[in-house]
């Protein structure tokens, strides 16, 4: 055993006291905050599954876009995601992390609705920006990217490296889980549904899982994606070769968002009383300033925006892409492809290809159409507690199907 720094006298003292303690008994004070007594949170009592349709800007649901990639061997899908998601995040982690500091309002509201002492999981926690939102819950974060996890050092929480489809969490133990902007990186519908299934397995029978994904319907954003469009895309992340520090680059955007944020908080606090969350989402009229955290880096780093507005389309059959373009999710310049494979350290020398060459990292996304997320929850043997749309994203709060008796209409 390794050494530990707890004074042994103190530890022994603790043992003595614990030994003297009587067997666990329920007290009034304790029962008041016990988990079972309050599963109906502000979120949980809000309106049901029809929220997505109400809140979204697009009501028609394209039906001809079900990916056919489910037949692909898992290994191919994994290899594809390794190249077009995992390697990219490892490479852009420092820059990416610098752009992730503001919680989504719907997510923050979900977190604040959890009871003190609840144990929560953040699967795909990235730089850990959600781990400290509610100081009265204990959260464990996990991410596939070791480099992002290295940015997620929350003193009061823990982070670990894990794959979303092979989670190391004891089943049924967590009170809640969140999975924000993660599942849209999985390249087959089977894997996306399995990811939700794994999340549900982590939480107790009445536990809730919030999933947040990028929407196909982004009519108010400048990306140009909307109903009926291609759902499987490679989206560029541009690393400026001449940027000394990501932080400096973010300065203008950061101050802009600061101006907006108090306003949103106010709104949110106000809404928390008893207004359904989707109302708030629907009322949001600042799609450009408070735009998805994702696009911040992209837009910022791409003055012309041309690559943002016309992202390369991915064949629905991911295996075609795997067969054709192996390796990194990087298109240009050539040296940047090597950078993504080589990992984070390589990005420092992307400039040697051409003096002003920016490294362009292509990340795979599946853009969710209206209603698709709810379908995936049902396929994962979950039930939709509520769902909604928040600035270019669909979200859902799900629980185990057997415990759901509020909808099913």
């Amino acid at each position: 055993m390794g050494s530990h720094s707890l004074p042994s006298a103190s530890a022994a003292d603790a043992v003595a006291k614990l030994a003297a303690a009587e067997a666990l008994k329920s007290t009034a004070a304790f029962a008041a905050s016990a988990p079972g007594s309050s599963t109906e949170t502000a979120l949980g009592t809000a309106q049901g599954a029809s929220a997505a349709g109400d809140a979204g800007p697009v009501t028609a649901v394209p039906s001809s876009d079900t990916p056919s990639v489910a037949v692909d061997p898992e290994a191919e899908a994994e290899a594809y995601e390794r190249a077009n998601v995992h390697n990219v995040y490892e490479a852009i982690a420092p820059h990416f992390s610098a752009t992730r500091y503001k919680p989504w309002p719907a997510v923050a509201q979900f977190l604040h609705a959890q009871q003190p002492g609840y144990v929560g999981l953040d699967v795909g926690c990235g730089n850990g920006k959600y781990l400290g939102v509610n100081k009265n819950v204990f959260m464990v974060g996990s991410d596939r990217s070791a480099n992002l996890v290295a940015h997620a050092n929350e003193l009061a929480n823990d982070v670990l490296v894990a794959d979303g489809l092979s989670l190391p969490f004891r089943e049924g133990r967590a009170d809640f889980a969140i999975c924000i902007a993660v599942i849209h990186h999985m390249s087959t519908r089977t894997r996306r549904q399995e990811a939700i299934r794994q999340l549900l397995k982590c939480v107790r029978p009445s536990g809730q899982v919030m999933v947040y994904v990028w929407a196909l319907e982004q009519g108010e954003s400048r990306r140009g994606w909307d109903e009926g469009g291609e759902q499987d895309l490679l989206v560029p992340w541009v690393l400026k070769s001449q940027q000394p520090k990501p932080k400096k680059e973010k300065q203008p955007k950061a101050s802009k968002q600061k101006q907006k944020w108090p306003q949103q908080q106010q709104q949110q606090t106000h809404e928390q009383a008893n207004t359904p969350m989707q109302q708030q989402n629907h009322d949001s009229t600042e799609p450009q300033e408070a735009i998805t955290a994702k696009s911040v880096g992209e837009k910022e780093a791409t003055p012309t925006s041309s690559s943002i507005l016309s992202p390369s389309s991915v064949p629905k059959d991911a295996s075609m892409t795997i067969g054709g373009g192996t390796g990194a999710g990087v298109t240009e310049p050539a040296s940047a492809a090597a950078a993504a494979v080589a990992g984070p350290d390589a990005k420092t020398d992307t400039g040697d290809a051409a003096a002003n060459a920016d490294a362009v990292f292509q990340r795979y996304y599946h853009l969710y159409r209206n209603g698709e997320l709810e379908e995936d929850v049902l396929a994962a043997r979950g039930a939709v507690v509520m769902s909604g749309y928040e600035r270019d994203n669909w979200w859902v709060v799900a629980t185990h199907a057997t415990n759901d008796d509020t909808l099913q209409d």
Partner: protein
Amino acid sequence: MKVMTLNFLTCAVKNCKSSNDSFPLHPKEAELAKDDIEINPQLLINVLPRIDWAALRTTSTELGFPTLPEQPPSPEDLQSDEALLKELHELLMETQMMEGKLVCGHCGHEYAVKNGVANFLLPSHLV
């Protein structure tokens, strides 16, 4: 990685999930550290019933601490005994496993812990 977190972790290998041998994971060559973290009594008292006490006893012993009592303290005990609350806080929240390995008692796979972060990515043959 906190002792608290260890109480919620098991092997990432699918076949191990249903086995009782995979929980808790066994620390090996563990180097511990103690963080100074502000105590949150309400969180701690409410967290107590979420702890698998038997697993915590195992982990605590394997980390070299004296054996914990068979039964957890009651919330009343915690509420009325500040020192007891502090001891629990030290064990669960402040004690960190910084280096070493976490070993599955079912399949024997070892997960590395480096700089306080455990890596649960599986080699392809275990996925």
